[in-house]
């Protein structure tokens, strides 16, 4: 039974008892308290104080990266005639957050502003629940709740770790002798400028821009039609990617790695594609290099979820990917449940016949030994392989960059 009804019933019993004493004064005293409690409840119900509130919630931004903060402000206006107590609250279930003002006394014609900061801990779309206004009557015996704002969505993109050079983009072309064909489309028309990166041709350095630059940083001209060999990042989205990895799951780590690599490649002018793969093609984004393409890749990486199927290297080998996807594949995979490491390495060597492959294996403490044995097996078939956990992403990317420089 609700607390206010319990109190009213208790008072009613006391009133009956006092009535039976036939003493008018004491009966009036009990009746007065009973009436006061009833008045409190009726005034609260019939004056509709919820209608006197205006709540405006502003979310600082709706798109951000993992590890960034988004500010949320609540502006509350109360235009009632008497003070009232209540609280405001909202939450984000997927981020495990719950915010509340705590119990407040709202005075008539006053504005309250509350500021909160949400740390985007995980990629994906997160829903900030509607702001619930929870008010209580003057004696705090009964309450009313109402949603005062709509829900808000925030898209948390994977975190992008800096990779300075575009050396990965040049890997396929340099190693496999595709330099000529890769640069075939270059014209004399300048498309834009970017920072100098190792292995850029000296004749493409813009010395004027370098002189004008405040830090005298070397700048490289980007010409219309300058296209290196496309690079495709293949991300395992099988059920192994749902395995916990520190605070995250394997797929979160893979998304951060893929986002960082794609960002670096596209910014360096390399056409970059993205494939989500389990035992078949799950999502295919053809290589391109414009800003919208990067945004599309980041959005897909933010929203991708592990499937219920297992990643199969043998199936990937048998896929007939068009030549648009280039000759360089960067594989980001999780723990593999495909039998022996030998079988895996054999499938990988088949793939390597026609492609330049680099592989990153995402693992956690439990799968570390198996990941190391896989790394060893794949290195034996000539595939540079790196290990990554949720805490070693920058380090993995650095080693990847250094290894690629050495290869080039």
């Amino acid at each position, binding site marked *: 039974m609700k607390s206010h009804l319990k109190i009213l019933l*208790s008072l009613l019993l006391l009133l009956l008892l006092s009535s039976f004493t036939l003493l008018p004064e004491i009966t009036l005293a009990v009746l007065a*308290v009973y009436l006061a409690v009833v008045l409190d409840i009726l005034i609260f119900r019939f004056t509709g104080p919820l209608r006197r509130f205006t709540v405006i919630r502003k979310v600082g931004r709706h798109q951000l990266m993992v590890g960034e903060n988004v500010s949320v402000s609540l502006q509350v206006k109360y235009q009632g005639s008497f003070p009232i107590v209540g609280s405001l609250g909202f939450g984000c279930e997927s981020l495990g957050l719950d915010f509340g003002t705590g119990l407040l006394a709202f005075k008539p014609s006053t504005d309250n502003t509350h500021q909160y900061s949400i740390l985007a801990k995980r990629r994906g779309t997160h829903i900030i629940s509607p702001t619930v206004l929870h008010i209580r009557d003057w004696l705090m015996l009964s309450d009313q709740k109402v949603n005062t704002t709509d829900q808000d969505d925030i898209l948390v993109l994977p975190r992008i770790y800096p990779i300075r050079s575009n050396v990965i983009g040049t890997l396929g072309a340099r190693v496999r002798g595709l330099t000529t064909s890769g640069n075939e489309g270059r014209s004399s028309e300048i498309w834009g400028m970017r920072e100098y990166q190792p292995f850029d041709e000296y004749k493409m350095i813009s010395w004027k821009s370098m002189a004008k630059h405040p830090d005298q940083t070397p700048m490289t001209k980007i010409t219309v039609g300058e296209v290196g060999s496309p690079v495709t990042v293949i991300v395992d989205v099988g059920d192994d990617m749902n395995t916990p990895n520190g605070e995250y799951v394997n797929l979160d780590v893979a998304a951060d790695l893929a986002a960082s690599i794609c960002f670096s490649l596209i910014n360096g002018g390399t056409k970059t594609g993205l494939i989500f793969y389990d035992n078949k093609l799950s999502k295919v984004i053809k290589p391109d290099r414009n800003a919208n393409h990067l945004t599309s890749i980041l959005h897909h990486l933010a929203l991708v979820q592990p499937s219920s199927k297992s990643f199969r290297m043998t199936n990937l080998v048998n896929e007939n990917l068009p030549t648009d996807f280039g000759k360089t594949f960067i594989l980001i995979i999780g723990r593999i449940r495909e039998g022996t490491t030998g079988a895996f390495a054999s499938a990988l060597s088949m793939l390597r016949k026609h492609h330049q492959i680099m592989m990153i294996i995402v693992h956690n403490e439990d799968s570390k030994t198996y990941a190391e044995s896989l790394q060893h097996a794949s290195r034996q078939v000539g595939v540079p392989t790196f290990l990554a956990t949720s805490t070693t992403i920058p380090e993995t990317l650095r080693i990847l960059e250094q290894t690629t420089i050495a290869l080039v």
Partner: protein
Amino acid sequence: MHLFNIFLKILPVIPIIPLVIIIANQTVATSLFKAAETTSFHIWVILIGSYLILRTGNYISKIKWIGVQVILEIGLLAMPFAYPIYIVATEMSSVQFEGVFLAYLSLGFLVSIYLLFRRSGVGSVWKIGAFLFAYLFALMIYAGSFAGQLTGVPFLITIAVDQLFRVAILTGYPAYLVYPPSEIYVSVSMTLAIPAIIFLALSAELAKSAARIAPQKGSTNIISNLKPAVLLLSLSAVIVLALTLPISLWVVTLNRQLVTLIPTISIAILVMLLVLISEKRDHEIS
């Protein structure tokens, strides 16, 4: 604000005034002194005093076995009746028994007064209940003492209990009704006591709710912000009480004894219905 706080501290004194008028007179004092001279009263003081010491020091709850705790509590509270019952059985004299009964009533009265002053953990039901029982105990003490002196004994239980079940006279039971001494002063002081007890009960309910809902910081601030609203509720309740006046005046012309029954219960049921309707309406909206 400082004055307001002082007012709040002395507020429980106002409802006590009519109770003091009922109990602070020579009739009650004589009965208490006579009862205090009996052996049963001395035993009562020792046992109840021990109980209160054990209770306030939390010694009873430290006993491992709950059965022993229960036996000890009941023993200490009920044992004072053992000797007077023995006297009633052997000597056919009820004086000692009635003396102990008076002592119990006096203790009940003091506990009720203590609850009126207590600030934490006591809601509106306890406050008004304490006031009701303090009034009833005071009236029973006075009535028992008054009737006892008429018959030459310190205290008369039957007359004291009659005050509790006054409604029985409506069924033809020959109850002996005793009206409070200085009745006019009791009535006048009750007109001050009623608003005071409303405010006291509502403030207590608010403090209890605030402690339950917001036990951490801020509850004091919330209470002080709502004090004007509580004051408004108290005044509104007094005004609404006036609704009972025409019905009461009409009922008095029919049967004076029904004045506490028909108007109060009918209004109580009517407003309870309103609450239930609003409850249903609220449920439908949500």
